[in-house]
């Protein structure tokens, strides 16, 4: 009897009944993301907003600038669905342009800040010791200096300080430090894990370990920080515009629209609520998408193949 059993030992060991079609990693991540309902809805909404912001201006009659033909301070009507401003802008046209500029700034900041911050933090955390001390002191400097003071100092001397990319670069330069701190903290504990040592024993270089092991395992906190950064960037941009260092008239951003309309919220609500609601919706969708991404990237989330 035992002779009969011997050959199929190999199979019995992992015959634990996990059937199903094998899939590639990317397919599985995609599947997990597709199943995350809030993330999928948010993604849909964000796509609509993006189309609205980038394609909308080509379809709509009015752009964001002042036009003599536009009657000032008119509430929403058939010609101007979101009304007009005192100066004679079409609010819908402004909203499209504003959303476009805000999205561009927010995503540029988020991507730049996250990439730079993650690499910086992971490198500091992986090497530890003196390298870590030095790199983190630099981070501290960036975190201590008040952003708006630096902006005021830099903006005057930067040529084209009012274009969206200049604004994005300035914000990114001061927000990567936050991400670097988060990532370094995570990496400090990850680097003690045996799988990192296993990679070293196999001959992996520090760069390989940081990119292949440390960053993927820190993906959760990184994504959370990146989504938060989007919201932070939008708010900072608004603040800068308000202090007349950000995107300047005649160009417009959501933050600027809100700032301009802050006293008009009760008297001319059509000026305040559209940009306000759009801003909140953008921040929310990005947070939900971040949640979905974080879960989809974590293979331990066993929503399938159990």
């Amino acid at each position, binding site marked *: *009897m*035992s*002779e009969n*059993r*011997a*050959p199929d*030992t*190999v*199979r*019995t*060991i*992992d*015959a*634990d*009944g*996990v059937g199903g079609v*094998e*899939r*590639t*990693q990317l397919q599985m991540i995609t599947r997990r993301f597709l199943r995350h309902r809030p993330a999928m809805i948010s993604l849909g909404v964000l796509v609509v907003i993006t189309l609205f912001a980038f394609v909308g201006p080509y379809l709509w009659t009015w752009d964001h600038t002042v036009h003599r033909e536009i009657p000032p301070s008119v509430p929403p009507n058939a010609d101007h669905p979101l009304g007009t401003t005192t100066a004679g802008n079409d609010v819908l046209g402004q909203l499209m342009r504003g959303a476009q500029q805000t999205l561009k700034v927010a995503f540029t900041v988020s991507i730049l800040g996250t990439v730079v911050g993650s690499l910086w933090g992971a490198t500091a955390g992986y090497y530890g010791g003196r390298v870590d001390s030095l790199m983190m002191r630099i981070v501290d400097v960036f975190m201590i200096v008040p952003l708006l003071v630096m902006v005021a100092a830099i903006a005057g001397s930067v040529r084209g300080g009012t274009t969206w990319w200049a604004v994005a670069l300035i914000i990114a330069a001061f927000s990567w430090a936050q991400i670097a701190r988060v990532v370094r903290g995570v990496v400090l504990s990850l680097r003690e*894990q*045996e*799988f990192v*040592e*296993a*990679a*070293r*024993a*196999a*001959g*992996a*270089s520090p760069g*390989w370990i940081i990119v*292949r*092991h440390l960053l*993927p*395992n820190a*993906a959760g906190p990184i994504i959370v920080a990146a989504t938060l950064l989007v919201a932070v960037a939008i708010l900072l941009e608004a603040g800068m515009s308000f202090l007349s260092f950000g995107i300047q008239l005649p160009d417009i951003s959501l933050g600027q629209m809100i700032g301009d309309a802050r006293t008009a919220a009760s008297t001319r609500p059509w000026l305040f609520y559209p940009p306000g609601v759009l801003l909140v919706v953008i921040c929310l969708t990005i947070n939900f998408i971040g949640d979905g991404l974080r879960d989809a*990237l*974590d*293979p*331990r989330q*066993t929503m399938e*193949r*159990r």
Partner: protein
Amino acid sequence: MTATDATNSEREGTVDRDDVVLEVDGLSVTFESDDGPLRAVREVSYVLRAGEALGIVGESGSGKSVTSMAIMGLLPRNARVTGSARVLGQEVIGLTDAQISKVRGERIAMIFQDPLTSLNPVYTVGYQIAEAVLAHRNVSRAKAMERALELLELVGIPHPEQRLRQYPHELSGGMRQRVVIAIAMANEPDVIIADEPTTALDVTVQAQVLEALNAARRETGAALVLITHDLGVVAGNVDRVAVMYGGRIVESGPVEEVFYRPRMPYALGLLGSLPRLDAGRRERLNPITGTPPSLSAMPPGCSFAPRCPLARQQCHEEEPLLLGVDEHGDRVSADVTDPAAHSAACHFSAELGESSPADLFRPARQGAGEGGAAEDTGGDRADTAPDPAGGEPILTVTNLVKNFPIRSKGLLRRKIGEVQAVSGISLELRERETLALVGESGCGKSTTARLLLQLIRRTSGEVYYRGQPLHTLTPRQMRPLRRDLQLVFQDPFASLDPRMTVADIVAEPLRIHGEGNGSARRRVGELLDLVGLNPEHGSRYPHEFSGGQRQRIGVARALALNPRVLVLDEPVSALDVSIQAGVINLLEDLQDELGLSYLFVSHDLSVVRHIADRVAVMYLGRIVETGTTEQLFGAPAHPYTQALISAIPLPDPVKERTRERIIVTGDVPSPADPPSGCRFRTRCPKFANELSAQEQVRCVEEPPELADRGSGHHDACHYSEVVELI
């Protein structure tokens, strides 16, 4: 001792219920979970009499701890407990928290595995013992403190007056566990439940703690429930044993009956899969195939049927009851309350007869798939083992030293001291041999392993691989050599990147060394097959595998680059017994097939005896004895080796109770401040008991060198003397 007394008195008298202190009847525990109900414990019944010791053995997930937690009322809210448990006749299942608190501590006390988490770090040891006394007795605080002192003395803690005023972190692990025992016995309970009380401890300390536990029993007359996965601990310390599997008791009886005449294939399989200190080297282990069942998907019949070589139709359909068996294994219905009764839950217990584990669980060649070339080597493989004296040295270490700096806190991080992790050791690993590096935790064995692989930088000393110095290489120069020198880790959970698929993990070393995608993928298939895993499962993630399977993945990764030397850092110590045997067999097969040399780092002497050709024993950063496995286990010369060997519990009740013991006292000193002269002298039984004051001076002043006792057996003791222990 108590065992024979208890059984004798029971056989004479009729079964009376007066001295029953704990009666568990049909106890079941179900956890509600997202995957449906998890039936952790099913219909467990047993009876415990005054002064008796019951051992509950089982692998992880068998429900042995949950049973006791249910009795203590310590389960979380999502647990549903049915059945009954009576302590001195009083039902404890279903009591409110306030009601059961009166029973806990007063009548039943529990000792947990981890003594660090079961003591409160912000109170002194004395305060915590006194508090346990005050909780159930109306005495003054001063009286309670007196009692605390008395208890500390009882459990064998030296200088109890000082210890009373210390905090838990100031005590060593063994010391803390003894404090926990003192707390448990504070109110002279009727039942003490000890849940893996020594699993987190070193063997020499384990012996001390078990001694303290026995002292506690003698003093209080309490009955003991000893829950453990270690069959050796059970053999020496209990009267009766119950074996749990898949949430049920599958066999129970007097310890000799169960160990010598098991009537359930699982119990037999467990005994067969255990590497034994008293068995010859390389006698092939007989692992139980497969893995324990998942609690959410229990097989309909006998839960062991999927892994059982005897299983037939009836086993898969009908769950066998726990029935008494007579000496022929025939099933008779016996009173479960009879302490001498031997019962088993198996339809075919009669067929087991006098079978040995080898008859039943014939070793099957793992990984003998398309890729494996070697034939089944069958039983003993000693004939294939290389001649220990022969073989070219492949890895040579001379005078290796590693000191870790202790730095001050703050910005400057000045060096304020040194941990002497490894203090001048020399080793020689030969072609195709297994050299075991043995020692307790903190002796520097894992540091040594990492020094050899240049994963940490040595302080001084030399490492040569095939005559080429490794210690002078830069990390970049070292990289190509890593092909030949690979590492397998202890923890199969932490050593695999959870974000990577198994195929990517195994292929990683290939990719690092520039192998193309196509050939890497082919090689991964071969490797998984070689270690006995299904190559089609490569696209899964590590968390989908069991511990044993993960360890196989770790081995596959280490083999990816066709190394010559594998450094194995405690490769089986995190695994359950039945799984461990399969991995050990796999390692042995791979060595034969691929001609590997192993440096096997372990604290487990039984495994070492089984797998190693030569052994080096380490203590506090020094090698104290080295020789072939036969020399070292047959004629240990250094007092530390002798103590280590005699501290390993044998899974054999009679041998375990009658063998000669050399007990070491105390704990391993701090490597930041090792003793002068011989580092073992502070714990050495020879130094303390046999040597004269003049002789002792030499131990204090002069560090002993490794000296040849002839035929390559070296030891580092000024007054070494061979003792036969097994």
